[in-house]
């Protein structure tokens, strides 16, 4: 097993978790996960989530959105998203059979934030239509989790967005206040047109190219953060 870049882990013995993701492998030692759970909570807060929220995620079980959900799910994670927010968490698998069940699950729960992997939004839309289920925007905030180059699913144009690139361990929220994606200071840096993860050695760089433009004026929600938005798109500010 290649060890190049195990989180803080210096040797094979120190790697406690090996998590394979599309086109990559994330290696974590003891205590490495908490940094990322804290970061994911920060992302959710920028998407408007409050303490005590119930969060549902429709993604594969090995996505960071899933495994950072709670300390009950992952060993070597002291506090996951649920514990940090004092809320609840449920992950619904992104396999077609499971997506078909989602409307029935959601009718049993009061969900504050629902995050869906972009590649299954079509399936989910079909399932919701079939079950005559509609998201009540007043109650549930809907977010599509998409990779840097993924096109925005047309049906979800009005949903909030979260950039998710697993092999880079890149999680960047679309900020409620400024409408841009925040690349959090201290975690990511832009180097030669690619996003570099500064805290996880096993993470790969994610090229950005000209799909995004850098936004210069600062945002109070993260003055140090590098902020980007999709080129050619109008500003998507949600609040104020």
């Amino acid at each position, binding site marked *: 097993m290649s060890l190049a870049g195990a989180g803080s882990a210096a040797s094979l013995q120190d790697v406690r*978790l090996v998590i394979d993701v599309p086109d990559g492998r994330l290696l974590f030692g003891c205590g490495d996960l908490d940094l990322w759970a804290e970061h994911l909570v920060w992302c959710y807060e920028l998407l408007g989530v409050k303490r005590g929220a119930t969060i549902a995620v429709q993604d594969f079980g090995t996505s960071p959105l899933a495994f950072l959900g709670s300390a009950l799910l992952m060993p070597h994670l002291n506090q996951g998203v649920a514990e940090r927010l004092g809320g609840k968490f449920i992950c619904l698998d992104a396999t077609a059979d499971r997506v078909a069940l989602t409307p029935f*699950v959601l009718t049993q729960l009061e969900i504050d934030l629902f995050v869906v992997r972009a590649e299954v939004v079509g399936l989910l839309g079909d399932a919701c239509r079939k079950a005559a289920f509609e998201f009540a925007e007043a109650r549930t905030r809907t977010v599509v989790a998409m990779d840097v180059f993924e096109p925005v699913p047309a049906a979800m144009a009005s949903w909030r967005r979260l950039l998710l690139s697993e092999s880079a361990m890149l999680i960047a929220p679309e900020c409620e206040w400024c409408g841009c994606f925040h690349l959090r200071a201290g975690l990511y840096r832009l180097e030669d047109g690619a996003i570099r993860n500064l805290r996880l050695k096993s993470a790969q760089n994610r090229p950005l190219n000209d799909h995004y433009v850098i936004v210069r004026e600062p945002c109070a929600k993260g003055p140090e953060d590098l902020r980007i938005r999709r080129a050619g798109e109008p500003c998507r500010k949600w609040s104020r």
Partner: protein
Amino acid sequence: MRSLGDDQAAEADAERWPVERLAAWQLDRLCEVIDFARKETPFYRRLWSEHDLTARKLERLEDLKHFPITTKEDLLRGGSADPTPGEGPVGFSTRGTSGKPLVVWLSAEEEEVYVRPTMRGFRWAGLKKGMTALLTSPVWHRLAACEAHAVARIGGRCAFFWGSILNPRHVESFLRTLDEVRPEFVTTTAPFLFWLVRHLESAGNSHAGALRNVAAIVVVGLPLTPRLREHLCQRLEVGDIFERGGTQEGAALDECAVHSAPHVHEDVCYLEVVDPQGRPVPAGRRGNLVVTKLASAGSIFVRYNTGDIAAFVPGRCPCGSSFRRLKIYGRPESSVEVAGKTIAAYDVRLCLEEDQTLVGRNLLLVREGVQSPQRLLVAVEGAGLNTEELERLLCDRLGLPGAKIMWLGDIRVRWGFREVLDRRELRSMGLNDSRENRR
């Protein structure tokens, strides 16, 4: 059979207790759970007051039979969504293979209770400190969440492949992780393992010996016949395969190295097998599995009928554990009614595998469109052989008036949790009566 180091003593205790001590422990836990449910769970409070059980105390384990059996439909109707104090922060959705899914909650206290038996089961299967375990994702099932913690506490490393055990296309991704991480221990579902066998067969030599490093695989999801287990071990070149069982509602079972049937972790769950009238049946007889969780944490389940068809195995296991053994044969989606009997795909497999050449061929039970048919109809992969003889064997062994085997030729049946097909679906697969008659 197993050496018990000091660090294992705590887990070993309960399974070595004399029967009376175990029963006393279970009674104490049951009383706690019932008191808790009465106080904190609106659903049970309502249900038990309707049955005049508001003040009923348990004096003996047998008194539990006075409490009504509940089903998923009762819970869905009766407001399972009402939050219970301490139900916990993590939800899991049941599969919904027979109807709508139910959401169950896991708390830290409950997980603490369930990690111990998981460690016990994994030790039975040979997991040791320093090993790497390739696991199913912890978000998939309440028991899977306990598995990663159990591996970590034993001192193992956890590895996860990308994707889902519910998608046959993710076998490739599983193999990539397997090839590169070289785990000694694997947990997965039986259907996924069969997809893997098929994938390896079609891939030729490109993954030869991919599992040679694996000392044990622990599988859930489908009951394995002894021959099917041997077949999998041999095809995959793995040391051993252990059946693990359990439900989101709290049943927890693991097989020991004797492989006679999984042991119930009786220190965390109280299981019953009941007849259609809800009366417990003796060991050796089949009935419906009814689960009571022995922890007043997470979602509470008292006498919950899981819909599984199961039987306790009579007698004690040679391994020395005092925990009873339970074989789960199937569910409504893996069984049919013929001549007033419930026949599971497992039963049919057990018969047909007496012909060694049929081991590993998948089959489907066909549900005919009539009330209590007198004939069992089975669709089996591959070319026909000894048809009359096998049909006679099915009738004799299963006590049926008639049986018919339909050979599927080169049509492949996807291994899955569902093992029953309606006759109409058979036709939509292009299998009509003329095909049925072709041998």
